[in-house]
């Protein structure tokens, strides 16, 4: 499938700066852009609560700049397009998120994100910044087989973690409890993604990967990393019939489980298509007796204008439902 190569940008080397300036101006009531390029809350969290930080490559907007705010992250350290920020910048983010009860660095599992977070924690040790820990998060079942979960990569399903660990950290002074909560949500979450088209890198202007007009790929990563394989495009129902059963079997999700469901738009899917896809998701879950607590459909973590979506399920108990329903006020994630 074809993609547009031309984007409405200015100097490609100023992409990040331009974007952060525009974003922080538009949502000045929620966030602030610091001189060292961090996105922080307009109203910082009160002292004595655990700080929540994430560094990540940009190009996935609204992730993660749109998730800084009450009930969500304290600080986001946006890297260049699809490139995790370096260790010194992560340390700056950790400092900005420190409210005296420690800081949890969330890592969406990708090689660059992990290595830089590890180096940042080494720097913290050298610089005597205390009470910092990190948690490695993953959800994509296509990237490593069952049993090897820690090798899986982090994708759109981690929004369940961001939302709920964000709510938890809002009132917690216990860093290790925050980490345990993040791990609990991660271990309850499974995702599988697909794409119909490629997308262009805004940095190079080149198409990121090749895919034929009549083909789709199941198992697509959030940077256009290829997945489990190509096949001809099928109908919405057939697509869900291919994708949902492996997700259900992986956890496994069982009859009477309550779940959150997410259909994440990776870029240029229409909401119309996502609603049509969701219809089949709801049908299958009902057949299996799996109960939907709440659903999210929309662009959460994008891969530029790639046409595709990620389907995620997260099993919830009363504690998680409570965290889910807690207020959130990020520029791009609002919970009343």
């Amino acid at each position, binding site marked *: 499938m074809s993609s547009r190569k031309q984007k409405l940008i200015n100097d490609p*080397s100023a992409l990040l700066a331009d974007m952060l300036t525009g974003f922080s101006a538009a949502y000045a009531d929620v966030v602030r852009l610091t001189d060292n390029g961090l996105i922080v809350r307009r109203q910082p969290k009160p002292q004595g609560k655990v700080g929540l930080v994430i560094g990540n490559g940009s190009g996935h907007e609204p992730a993660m700049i749109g998730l800084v705010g009450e009930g969500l992250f304290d600080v986001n350290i946006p890297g260049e397009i699809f*490139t995790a920020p*370096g*260790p010194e910048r992560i340390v700056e983010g950790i400092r900005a998120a420190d409210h005296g009860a420690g800081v949890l660095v969330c890592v969406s599992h990708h090689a*660059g994100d992990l290595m830089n977070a590890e180096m940042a924690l080494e720097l913290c040790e050298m610089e005597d910044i205390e009470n910092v820990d990190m948690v490695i998060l993953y959800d994509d079942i296509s990237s490593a087989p069952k049993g090897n979960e820690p090798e899986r990569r982090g994708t759109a399903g981690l929004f369940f973690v961001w939302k709920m660990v964000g709510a938890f950290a809002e009132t917690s002074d216990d860093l290790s409890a925050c980490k345990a909560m993040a791990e609990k949500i991660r271990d309850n979450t499974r995702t599988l993604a697909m794409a119909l088209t490629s997308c262009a890198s805004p940095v190079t202007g080149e198409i990121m990967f090749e895919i034929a007009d009549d083909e789709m790929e199941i198992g697509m*990563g959030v940077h256009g*990393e290829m997945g489990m394989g190509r096949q001809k495009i099928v109908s919405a129902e057939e697509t869900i019939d291919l994708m949902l059963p492996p997700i259900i079997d992986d956890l496994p999700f069982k009859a009477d489980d309550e779940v959150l469901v997410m259909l994440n738009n990776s870029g240029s899917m229409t909401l119309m298509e996502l609603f049509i896809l969701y219809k089949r998701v709801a049908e299958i879950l009902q057949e299996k007796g799996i109960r939907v607590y709440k659903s999210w459909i929309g662009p959460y973590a994008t891969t530029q204008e790639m046409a595709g979506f990620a389907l995620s399920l997260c099993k919830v108990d009363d504690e998680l439902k409570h965290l889910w329903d807690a207020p959130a006020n990020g520029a791009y994630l609002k919970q009343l």
Partner: protein
Amino acid sequence: MTANIVITSQQLDDMIVAIAAQIAENRDLLNQLDSALGDGDHGTSISTAFSSAAEQVKQLEDAQPADILKTTASVVMNRMGGASGALFGTLFMKAALTAKDKTTLTKSDMDALWQAGLDGVKSRGKSDVGDKTMIDALSPAVQAFCGAQDFGSGWQSAAEAAQRGAKSTKTMIAKHGRAKFISERAIGHQDAGATSITLMFEAIYAYWKTLEGQD
């Protein structure tokens, strides 16, 4: 033509500049290689990083070799970001630690620098030869360099070994980085990071030849 016995700070400076130039020239090639296996940005990010490292290094005054290597490490790590920022950064950072307090670098100093850098990259990346990464070029290059008697033959054999190592990644399945997710489909494509390592050694070797021509 006689072999230089030690490397001075000035020469180390020049090497960083030469590496930056060589990588900048091959930016599009590196992007292309990375788009077959990864996200297509390796050329852009490594060339931007080394260009600013070269700038920064030029501005150092009375720098020891360790200062030059540490500056390079820090700029690469923090400007480049990503996996390769961490890995190329680690390569130079470990070398800097090993070069601590030295005013010039002998061949055996240099052997130790490269060895420390290689070990650092391996443990940071939890990877080894055969995983279809930069290590497939770096490891044989370091081995070849350390096995040589002097700088001249060392740089030459390192560049050649890196080249062979980079080519060998074509037939491999990736175990790390973004490329690991495409498994068999990676076959036939050469790893971008391994290619950068090769360009690095080629730049140093070419620079060294101009030095030897001078004396």
